[in-house]
């Protein structure tokens, strides 16, 4: 098709997003400690390896059975409907946390959390994915080096919870690889 409109460009979320994007239970896609509930937690780090305290992380995912929720009510959670979307603000140490479920495979695809990161100082959103430990390789993962791949796969903690670091920029002193970000 021709005559495409110019898309509206993105801008930084700025320092004061919290009062504009807050809602109750935004990081609780499921009730904490309910059957099948897990914690997905981690940190958002800058190029010096420091936690970013004014960052926002969003996840969008399939239910454990691989179905994609079409249910409304993200902003007004009823306590039992899984809507698949969550939002978390990082704390002073750059930590974020969600209560959610393990995503299932959609149409046989490797399951992952679709993720967007925003921060003061970051001029636009960044898309990435968080895959499950031990995941089968999909098209994206098989195109990456093992170091790059590591930046997209969560670590499993003893209790089945998941942990994942999002590094906006390589911290050269620590030779730590920045997270692989995506464009579509």
């Amino acid at each position, binding site marked *: 098709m021709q*005559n*495409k*409109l*110019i*898309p*509206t*460009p*993105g*801008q*930084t979320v*700025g*320092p*004061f*997003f*919290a*009062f*504009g*994007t*807050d809602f109750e239970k935004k990081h609780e896609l499921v009730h904490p400690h309910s059957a099948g509930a897990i914690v997905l937690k981690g940190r958002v780090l800058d*190029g010096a390896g420091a936690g970013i*305290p*004014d960052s926002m992380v969003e996840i*969008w995912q399939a239910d454990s059975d691989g179905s*994609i*929720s*079409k*249910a*409304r009510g993200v*902003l007004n959670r009823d306590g039992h409907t899984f*809507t*698949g979307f969550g939002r978390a*603000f990082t704390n002073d140490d750059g930590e974020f946390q969600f209560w959610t479920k393990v*995503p299932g495979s*959609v*149409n046989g*695809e490797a399951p*992952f959390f*679709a993720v*967007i990161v925003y*921060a*003061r*100082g*970051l*001029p*636009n*959103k*960044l*898309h990435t994915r968080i895959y499950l430990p031990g995941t089968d390789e*999909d*098209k*994206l993962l098989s*195109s*990456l080096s093992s170091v790059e791949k590591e930046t997209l796969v969560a670590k499993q903690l003893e209790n089945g919870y998941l942990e994942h670091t999002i590094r906006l*920029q390589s911290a050269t002193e620590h030779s730590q690889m*920045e997270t*692989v*970000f*995506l*464009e*579509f």
Partner: protein
Amino acid sequence: MTPNPQQTSVAPESLLAAPDHASQEQITQEIIDFHEVLSKRSVAGEKLPQTILDFAPYRSSVLRSPTKNPKLVDPETIELWSPAYGQRDVTAIESDLTLSGGSGEPQGERITVSGRLLDSWGRPVTNQLIEIWQANAAGRYIHQRDQHPAPLDPNFVGAGRTVTDENGFYKFTTIKPGPYPWRNHANAWRPAHIHFSVFGRAFTQRIVTQMYFSGDPLFALDPIYNSIPEQKDRDRLVGIYDHSLTVPEFSMGYSFDIVVDGPDATWFEKEAE
């Protein structure tokens, strides 16, 4: 929505102030030089993003932007869907920010901001969430990290949200925000703006952006506005005065359409399902 400014932790002020404290002249020159370099790269055939991530005149981007280009991937199924929103999620009153504070009228120039949410083929994006937040008429945010010594307005919070209608239209009633001082460099002022957070039909279409007001004298001076190097792209962020949206004896009208991007071919496959 009952925002509580106390719930956000305080960032040390050192995080908000750029250490080099450059002059406005220096920042403006950096912006001009940066745009020139980008323009040459573009002419040489490089495909640049609309928004530049490592835009050094915006000092805090230096440590917070990736050094590598993003990987171009085909979206997987989940990324072609978006969270669903509807009237269940928002109440009508939330799109009128002049009613969000105390019992009185907020100070400042009342405005109506209205437009359509479209995809890049011009089709309306219906039933999707738009969240906004902004400073008050004096340029002050209701946030404890905001150190700007301008008055808070007891009758204005500055946060609202709405869901687009069956034709993709949205409308907010609010107050025109004031310009806002920040610590990127010496005597740094942001042009008046309203933050927009928008969901498209696919998660890949999600955008967070800012709406400005046409003719703002601060445009050339602002590193955030100029993190978008092309004028035709920056023009997309400007709300245009529209007398047909002005409500008699009530509010000045501004028109602001939002166009979400891509994904290209795959989107049609999903629609055909």
